[in-house]
């Protein structure tokens, strides 16, 4: 494992005269699940978009696997909270979307991949449904499958479960964590929800209010280990860590998140 799969080197970002990200250094290892946690409007989305190549740093560089990120490509796929799947395509069509632009896959391989990812997200029966006819949780599953099918190595997820009800959200968290381990993906995940952060993360990066600055780097994997079954959220270690993170937020960011 190379130590810096994704690397931020003195990255800053301002919109006009407003500084949004103050000089940030961060390295993320391959196959890890990193959660960005921080107060509203602090610049988490902006940081993630820069990794995706959708925004560029005002100064400093972001590298992926040693290479400077300058534009979006299929190695880093985005999953948003809303408008996450294309309404004019079926579930199958959505999952197939990114593969249309790959010429290294034969028609059979594409079909096999569609089937594989449909099964992975448990939506075999909804192959020909349109996104407007399925639930919000299913739409997010489809978005995840589509990104994986396109062949992304890194998933950039900006509050993807933010609009879901608590139960659906819990299910999806378990599934996402499992998928990340099975498919060996690197994930950067932005959330407001401390419990979600602790449950999902190998590592939580806690940011200050705008302009974003790294306040804490919390090694969750060291406490909770790699496996996160649903029961993990009932364990004492989970509670203790959750409370600890909550306290950190209260003390260091003035209580907002």
């Amino acid at each position, binding site marked *: 494992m190379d130590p810096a799969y994704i690397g931020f080197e003195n990255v800053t970002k301002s919109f006009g005269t407003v500084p949004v990200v103050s000089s940030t250094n961060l390295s993320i290892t391959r196959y890890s699940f990193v959660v960005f946690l921080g107060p509203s409007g602090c610049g988490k989305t902006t940081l993630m978009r820069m990794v995706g190549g959708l925004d560029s740093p005002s100064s400093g560089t972001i590298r992926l696997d040693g290479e400077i990120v300058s534009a979006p*490509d299929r190695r880093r796929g985005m999953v948003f909270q809303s408008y996450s799947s*294309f309404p004019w395509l079926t579930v199958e069509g959505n999952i197939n979307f990114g593969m249309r632009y790959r010429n290294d896959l034969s028609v059979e391989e594409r079909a096999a991949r569609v089937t594989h990812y449909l099964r992975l997200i448990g939506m075999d029966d909804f192959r020909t449904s349109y996104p*407007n006819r399925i639930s919000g949780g299913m739409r997010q599953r489809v978005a995840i499958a589509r990104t994986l099918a396109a062949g992304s190595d890194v998933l950039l997820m900006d509050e993807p479960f933010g609009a879901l009800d608590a139960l659906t959200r819990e299910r999806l968290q378990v599934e996402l964590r499992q998928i990340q381990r099975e498919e060996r993906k690197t994930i950067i995940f932005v959330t407001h929800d401390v419990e979600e952060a602790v449950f999902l993360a190998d590592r939580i990066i806690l940011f200050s209010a705008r302009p974003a600055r790294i306040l804490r780097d919390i090694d969750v994997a060291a406490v909770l280990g790699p496996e996160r079954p649903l029961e993990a959220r009932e364990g004492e270690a989970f509670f203790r860590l959750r409370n600890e993170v909550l306290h950190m937020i209260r003390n260091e960011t003035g209580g907002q998140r």
Partner: protein
Amino acid sequence: MASGLFTFRGKSSARADIMLGLGVAAALILAWEAVARAGFIQPQFLPAPSRVLGALWSMTTTQGLLWHAFVSTMRVWVAFLLAAAMAIPIGIMMSSYRVVGASLEPTIDFIRYLPVPALIPLSIIWFGVGEETKIFLLWLGTFFQLVLLVADDMRRVPHEYVEIAFTLGAKPRQVLTDVALRAMGPTLVDNLRITLGWCWTYLVLAEIVAADSGLGFVIWSARRYVKTPEVMAGVVVIGLIGLVTDQLLRAWHRRMFKYL
């Protein structure tokens, strides 16, 4: 079945809706017939619907009404397709590339506010009184409106779709054809349908001023001899063509965008 008709924002069946709409239309026509027959109003101001129907029949058999309707429809469609064929790519480009949008917007916005009737004399000076004048006037009335509507549709495509496509490996051209065009499809078709309606307004205008054929010409000629039933018959034909076209386009919209 029909109970939803009376609830605030209630739902009802398509059949109930159609029956209700036709029923009201029939009632209005009957009321009109009754008023006209009662004789309070001179028939040359308000002929009964039955007389308009009679005029419709005699115009069809002796004056080639169907041919006039065909000529008008062709004019509308030629001008409309011409306007659409230009407005769709230009409108999309205006919202895709700032250079196109910034350079065209002021001019288009200016021309958009020029009243078409005011340009009729100019159009006749340029193109004479042939087909070109009519097509030009219709095009003028629709192109500049449509191009801004298309630009707006394009601007409203959620940015998320575009960015998702980029992170899935699409190139700008592919984002345009596979995402932007698909995402704007439903509103684009709606706007085309509405613009086509405007085309008919300008058609009558153009045919009144400079034509010896078409429904506008028929209406205007009948007016000269105060043949009110024929004037009304001409108007009814335009209304019917509009209604049928609109319903067909709506049906096509529903078929094409089943996912909505």
